[in-house]
């Protein structure tokens, strides 16, 4: 408190300090831009060698008192070359300013949205041009940023249209808290939530359901001028607790202040999107078990009431070929009725084998045809993107109007789409020298259909990838099942476990049923509006007031029709509308002073108010009364089957802040900031007020030391220190009572709200904490910016280290204490890293330019304190999860390993197979060792070619999909065959402990007796191996036991995620010759072709190693039936008038 007062007093003092100087004559003049002659306001005009100076007014005019004789005026302005003009005896000095291309690119936007020269900053930012993102070929904004800035990790979670992505700047600064950076649009923070929504009154799980959109993708990349990524705590202390994860400042396009001309620009793009990776599948063995074809469609019923899920059946090559033998005779003892499709086609069951070593192993399945489930599911996706903009202005104001429409069809054949319409308008009006007003308005409307994925029997891939290779998902999926007695049941589903729709619950949804029948629809209305008033009562002082509102509502419909697999079998409908509103207001005053000839100062004092409100009201209804074509109505059930839900949160932050920037001799720069913040989320028993400071300094040593020359043209060293507090989330201060619900990880619940139970409550197992303090992140960074070869090449190097203390997390408590966790300031984290950015023109001639740009990031992260808990669940499954573990990087993969002895060797069971450890341990680290991006841009006359490679070294991923495909025998790795002699078959054992000859005869054996060859030998699906205890046979009993994904051990499915990708290639041609302009009256026409993710080199199979099941949550590195990633080709034409 005392500190802040003192600082404030200094500022106040400076506001009222004036400097006097002698004056004898007045010189005036007008400053214009050289290219179009327009007036240039705001240019600094200084009498060289003095502090005597002024700035040009709105018309570019200036007046300055100068000494009687001689003198030189220095004209400087960001974006223009500085000019020195001798006054001589003149009283009027008009000057034309030349734009400085090199400098233009180095203006950066500070945390408050103000422009400054990058050369004066003591901290790092990364700037990405709006065009670079737009031309990347990504339909949505976030992914286009990928690979373009050091220290910024952007991970797309799925190829679904509009899907959310995980953004991480400089490592993780929290454990269970929000990790996503603050997004600030034209100075106003906006929402970037990724709400999974609710179902049945509970928060939807991250491991099932659909990948929701990222709210950042609501913005149209065509409207964006630039992105400024503020990485360090120092750079972002002005946004306080919300900026701990970095800030992405987005600046939208503005109309140019040319002479009243209206610019009209149209661009249209068309893309083609294809699936990037496929899980390798086996096509050698059919559906069944122990080498017998069996689909559980005829009689027998060995497997209870569920269809057989495995593909350990007969060898397809050994089938006779030709038509299958179906059971269509009602007198046949195997007759089970038939399935009738809507067009009247009758499908009879194929005769199952009898699972008898003395009978044919293929039953009636004669056909050798196999099917790729990818063919049934995917198509080439595409999008059309149209953007029209009008902009213009003059010296008194400008405007920009942008209208965009994106219409995307995903790669899934139906109901995976994304339609976005955006309107953007902003204008600025300069009333007079004193007042300037700007307004900003964005509206987005998004409708999207999404597809279920993940650990979910209604997920696209789950049934798809488990499907037997000899079952055609596309043949039929919905119709009527007629039973033996001829009685029909409508709305039955055909899937590989229920091939004639005989089962009410098909086990897993047929993917064709999913994309045709299920609905996950989202309709978003997003509105962002803000205004800004600048008042400059005197030329050294500007007062800015800025207020904005960001609101969205996302109306969601989730429908599972009757006949869907699993718990929603009797139909389920959820309607909900998550909404968020954010209000933000800033008022601040800026002042410039020259304290002496060499020492200049900018000071700023301001206040910030922010309120965020989120709510969601909705309901789930299940067990439909109208079962065919059910209406979208929550009343479509009996009353007890309707579950309403709602959720609400509101939080407020208020702060006052100060900054002071000093420049000495234009070579030494020091910036100081302080923020005093109060938040509503602290317990009232503690003070809600916190202060955090930051400081940064920069030294342009090349100037001071006078070592600038042609080769080494500029050098700056910088250092920054900053502290930022991360406030707790809302409502953690008390221990609440919840509706009492018995639950278990298998999904079954008992809910006390049932009429049977009458309604009950219980104390939560999470202990509240009224004494929560903010997490404090302290960061120090050192770095330098260097330019070479006459400023053609530049290099930026930064080393940073940050420590986060008092990280708030649900500290795991022993359940026997009555609580399973407690929210507390418990953990500590350490991050350190090196970021390198390099860029420049390798070749620069009139016709040809070769520009190279690159970035490299190395980040090390460690949990240094976890409050006595050895591991904390972040995301995933009970078997394999992403966790925070003491002395490990955040997000490590955690699960059960094989039991090993001290030397690391397997401890074997009596049969020579490995055993599972009884406890869990760290299995892998999803964080890469380093990441790099390297791009090259070539331009020759109107042509330009841009190539961007990205590489991620190291890091692990859990191949969950593969592990489960092992279990079901559909993965290509399970395609083995071994022939054992009769003697071997009598001695070699499989995982069930049976010999191959004896297998299937003992209690506890998974399968049935194998079919022997005529000579007594056995040809079985599998291979022999030796775990250290002698030869054993790996076969279906291993895959369905410890060797597959449903066994407790997951360590053998942790794989390296290293990848290199050709992130983007684009070739463009710009038609803008004078002849063309005269002939068409157009300014230019540009053509561009872009390829996105065309090649990915990686050892990981089946999906993009960037994929992540739990989306933009704090857990990473998991692939479990995630919807696949895509590659794209985009064609664009742009017409400028």
């Amino acid at each position, binding site marked *: 408190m005392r500190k802040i007062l003192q600082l404030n007093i200094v500022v106040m003092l400076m506001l009222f300090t004036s400097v006097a100087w002698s004056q004898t004559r007045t010189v005036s003049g007008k400053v214009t831009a050289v290219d179009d002659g327009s007036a240039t306001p705001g240019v600094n005009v200084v009498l060289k060698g003095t502090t005597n100076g002024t700035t040009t007014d709105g018309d570019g005019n200036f007046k300055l008192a100068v000494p009687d004789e001689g003198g030189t005026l220095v004209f400087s302005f960001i974006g223009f070359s500085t000019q020195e003009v001798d006054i001589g005896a003149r009283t009027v000095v008009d000057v034309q300013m030349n734009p400085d291309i090199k400098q233009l690119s180095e203006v950066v936007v500070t945390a408050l949205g103000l422009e400054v020269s990058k050369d004066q900053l003591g901290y790092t930012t990364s700037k990405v041009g709006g065009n670079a993102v737009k031309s990347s070929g990504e339909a949505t904004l976030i992914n286009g940023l990928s690979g373009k800035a050091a220290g910024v990790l952007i991970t797309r979670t799925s190829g679904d249209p509009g899907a959310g992505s995980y953004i991480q700047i400089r490592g993780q600064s929290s454990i269970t808290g929000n990790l996503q950076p603050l997004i600030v649009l034209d100075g106003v923070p906006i929402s970037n939530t990724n709400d999974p929504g609710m179902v049945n009154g509970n928060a939807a799980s991250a491991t099932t359901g659909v990948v929701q959109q990222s709210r950042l993708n609501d913005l149209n990349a065509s409207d964006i001028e630039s992105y400024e990524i503020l990485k360090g705590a120092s750079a972002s202390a002005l946004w306080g607790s919300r900026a701990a994860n970095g800030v992405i400042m987005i600046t939208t396009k503005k109309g140019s202040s040319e002479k009243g001309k209206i610019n009209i620009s149209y661009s249209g793009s068309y893309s083609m999107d294809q699936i990037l990776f496929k899980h390798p599948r086996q096509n050698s063995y059919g559906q069944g078990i122990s080498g017998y074809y069996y689909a559980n469609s005829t009689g027998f019923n060995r497997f209870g009431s569920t269809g057989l899920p495995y593909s350990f059946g007969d060898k397809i090559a050994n089938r006779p070929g030709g038509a299958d033998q179906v059971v269509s005779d009602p007198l046949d003892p195997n007759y089970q009725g038939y399935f009738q499709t809507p067009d009247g086609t009758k499908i009879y069951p194929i005769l199952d084998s009898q699972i008898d070593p003395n009978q044919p192993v293929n039953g009636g399945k004669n056909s050798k045809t196999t099917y790729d489930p990818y063919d049934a599911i995917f198509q080439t996706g595409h999008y059309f993107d149209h953007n029209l903009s009008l902009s213009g202005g003059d010296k008194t104001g400008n405007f920009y109007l942008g209208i965009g429409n994106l219409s995307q069809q995903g790669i899934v054949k139906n109901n995976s789409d994304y339609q976005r319409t955006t309107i953007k308008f902003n204008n600025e009006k300069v009333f007079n020298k004193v007042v300037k007003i700007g307004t900003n308005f964005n509206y987005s409307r998004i409708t999207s259909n999404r597809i279920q994925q993940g650990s979910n029997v209604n997920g696209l891939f789950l049934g798809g990838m488990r499907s037997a290779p000899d079952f055609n998902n596309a043949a039929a999926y919905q119709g009527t099942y007629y039973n033996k007695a001829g009685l029909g049941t409508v709305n039955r589903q055909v899937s590989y476990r229920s091939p004639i729709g005989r089962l009410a619950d098909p086990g897993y949804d047929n993917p064709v049923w999913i994309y045709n029948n299920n609905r996950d629809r989202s309709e978003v209305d997003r509105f962002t509006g803000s205004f800004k008033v600048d008042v400059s009562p005197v030329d050294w002082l500007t007062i800015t007031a800025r207020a904005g509102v960001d609101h969205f509502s996302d109306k969601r419909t989730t429908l599972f029709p009757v006949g869907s697999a699993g718990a929603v079998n009797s139909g389920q409908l959820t309607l909900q509308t998550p909404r968020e509103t954010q209000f933000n207001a800033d008022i601040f005053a800026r002042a410039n002073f020259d304290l002496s000839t060499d020492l200049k100062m900018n000071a700023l004092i301001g206040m910030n108010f922010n309120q965020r409100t989120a709510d969601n009201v909705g309901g789930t209804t299940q067990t439909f009364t109208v079962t065919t074509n059910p209406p979208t109505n929550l009343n479509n059930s009996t009353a007890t089957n309707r579950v309403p839900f709602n959720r609400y949160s509101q939080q407020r932050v208020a702060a006052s802040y100060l900054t002071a920037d000093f420049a000495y001799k234009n070579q030494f720069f020091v910036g100081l900031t302080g923020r005093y913040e109060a938040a509503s989320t602290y317990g009232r028993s503690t003070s809600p007020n916190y202060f955090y400071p930051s400081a940064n300094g920069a030294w342009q040593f090349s100037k001071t030391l006078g070592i600038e020359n042609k080769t080494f043209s500029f050098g700056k060293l910088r250092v920054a220190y900053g502290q930022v507090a991360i406030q707790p989330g809302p409502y953690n201060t008390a221990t609440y009572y919840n509706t009492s619900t018995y639950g278990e990880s298998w999904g079954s619940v008992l809910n006390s709200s049932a009429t049977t139970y009458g309604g009950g409550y219980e104390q939560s197992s999470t*202990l509240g904490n009224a004494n929560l303090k903010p997490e404090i992140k302290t960061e120090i960074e050192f770095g330098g910016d260097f330019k070479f070869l006459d400023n053609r090449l530049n290099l930026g190097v930064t080393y940073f280290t940050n420590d986060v203390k008092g990280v708030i997390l649900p500290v795991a408590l022993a359940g026997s204490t009555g609580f399973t966790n407690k929210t507390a300031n418990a953990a500590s984290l350490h991050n350190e890293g090196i970021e390198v950015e390099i860029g420049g023109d390798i070749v620069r001639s009139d016709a040809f330019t070769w520009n190279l740009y690159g970035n490299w990031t190395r980040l090390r992260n460690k949990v240094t304190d976890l409050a006595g808990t050895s591991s904390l669940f972040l995301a995933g499954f009970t078997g394999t999860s992403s966790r925070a573990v003491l002395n490990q990087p955040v997000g490590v993969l955690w699960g059960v390993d094989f039991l090993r002895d001290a030397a690391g060797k397997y401890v074997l069971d009596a049969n020579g197979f490995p055993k599972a450890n*009884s406890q869990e341990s760290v299995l892998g680290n999803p964080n890469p060792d380093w990441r790099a991006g390297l791009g090259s841009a070539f331009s020759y006359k109107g042509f330009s070619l841009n190539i961007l490679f990205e590489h991620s070294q190291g890091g692990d991923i859990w191949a969950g999909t593969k592990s489960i495909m092992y279990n079901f025998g559909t993965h290509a790795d399970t395609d083995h065959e071994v022939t054992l002699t009769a003697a071997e078959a009598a001695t070699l054992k499989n995982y069930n402990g049976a010999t191959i000859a004896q297998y299937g005869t003992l209690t506890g054996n998974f399968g049935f007796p194998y079919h022997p060859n005529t000579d007594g030998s056995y040809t079985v699906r599998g291979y022999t191996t030796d775990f250290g205890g002698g030869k054993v046979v790996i076969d279906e009993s291993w895959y369905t036991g410890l060797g597959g994904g449903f066994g407790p051990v997951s360590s053998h499915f942790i794989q390296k995620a290293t990848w290199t990708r050709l992130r983007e290639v684009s070739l463009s041609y710009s038609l803008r010759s004078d002849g063309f302009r005269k002939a068409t009256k157009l300014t230019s026409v540009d053509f561009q072709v872009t390829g996105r993710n065309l090649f990915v080199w990686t050892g990981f199979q089946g999906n993009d190693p960037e994929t992540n099941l739990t989306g933009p949550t704090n857990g990473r590195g998991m692939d479990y039936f995630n919807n696949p990633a895509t590659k794209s080709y985009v064609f664009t034409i742009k017409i400028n008038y």
Partner: protein
Amino acid sequence: MKKFRYKSIVILAFLLAGCQAFVENTSEFDPTRPVDADMKLVVTGMEVEFIGTMEGDLARTAGMWSGYFTGVDRQYIPLNNYVSTAVDYVTAWNNVYSFTLKQSRIVQDKANVLGDRITLGIAQIIEANIIGTAAALWGDIPYSQAINLTQFPNPAYDPQAQVIASLLPLLDAAIANLNSGVGTTGGNLPLNATTTQYIAAAHSLKARYYLYQKDYANALAEANLGVSSNANNITGKHGTTNDQDRNIYYDFTQRQRVGYMTAKSAFLPQRLTARASAKTDETARLKFFYTGGVGAYDLNVSATGFFGSASSFPIVTYYETRLIAAEADAKLNNGITVNGLAALNAVRAALAVQFPTGKYLAYVAADFADVNAFIKEVQEEKWIDLIGQIEGFNEIRRTNNSVGVPINVGTQLPQRYIYSQNEINSNTSTPNPIPDLFTKTAIFQ
């Protein structure tokens, strides 16, 4: 200069006061959730958690290891074959402690404040039952220091025998409280039992624990005061609404994890078939429990089956109580007595009522070769009656598997559950190394 300082302080004070007022106008508490609830509501909450814990996850694992069920698909294949790790018990352990026991203690606190002795007694019975179950399954468990975070953040593990012993006075207190007649049974819908039923159940639980202790005299005495008819069983009530009140066996096998668990090659249906004799026909009972045939048995989830959606789940029963009396009597007298026979025959008589198409003629002493054969029959009858209950697995270990449940894999039956991974992580008092699945617990040696 002074003027500026003064102005500056005023301005700053004004700004900061504004900040504070702005944030304090928003509540720190979630408006959608209460921070306390009436006793009656917590009683309901406690009973729902209790039923779920007795009937859910823990009971299915017990059932696969006790010959009732077979794990045939995905994660249930390894679990069926005794491949089990500390992770498998995280949720269940928390359900025992943080959900059931803690709510019971909250109810007891609230009941003490209100002087509601009946509610106090009910909560004490829930505590005695859930803790007795946990001790039987895990051996040494936290009890005397449990549910007291402030004082005992790392609750000590009390010896199994000591935990069981300490439940007997707790049940006495419960009986005394219930007998006082002061109070209500508000919030009691999930178990929906009367004061009389609760008192009898408390005696039955005492009988069970005395039997664990091999204190046959007391076991017999308490059993004779225990549940006196099927109508007086303590059962968990169920209905037919998804995600609300369905029988958990039904929900697990028919909705959540279809195909994971059947009774494909389970021992119980085989035994029920094999038990056919001149005096016994178990066909009806077999059909009540199971569907399907040899090698393909499945749980009977029909509306009239044991595992039907709305079928009540037994927790403390007449059959178990009578069979405790029968076994205690035989062991106490080392012979087949009239009373012992009567206790077994009471069960058979009730079965004959329950299954009119079955045959359960009364036994006479001559039906048994010796007292051991009698005890074996009593234990097998009890094992059958305990289908689906955790207590069935406790019985197999207590009786050293007298019914001869086949071992699914390897050479030994599991002898306990493994401590929860969360407890291993967060309670420094957890034994290290943790005992493995096949290490016998102290009382079931």
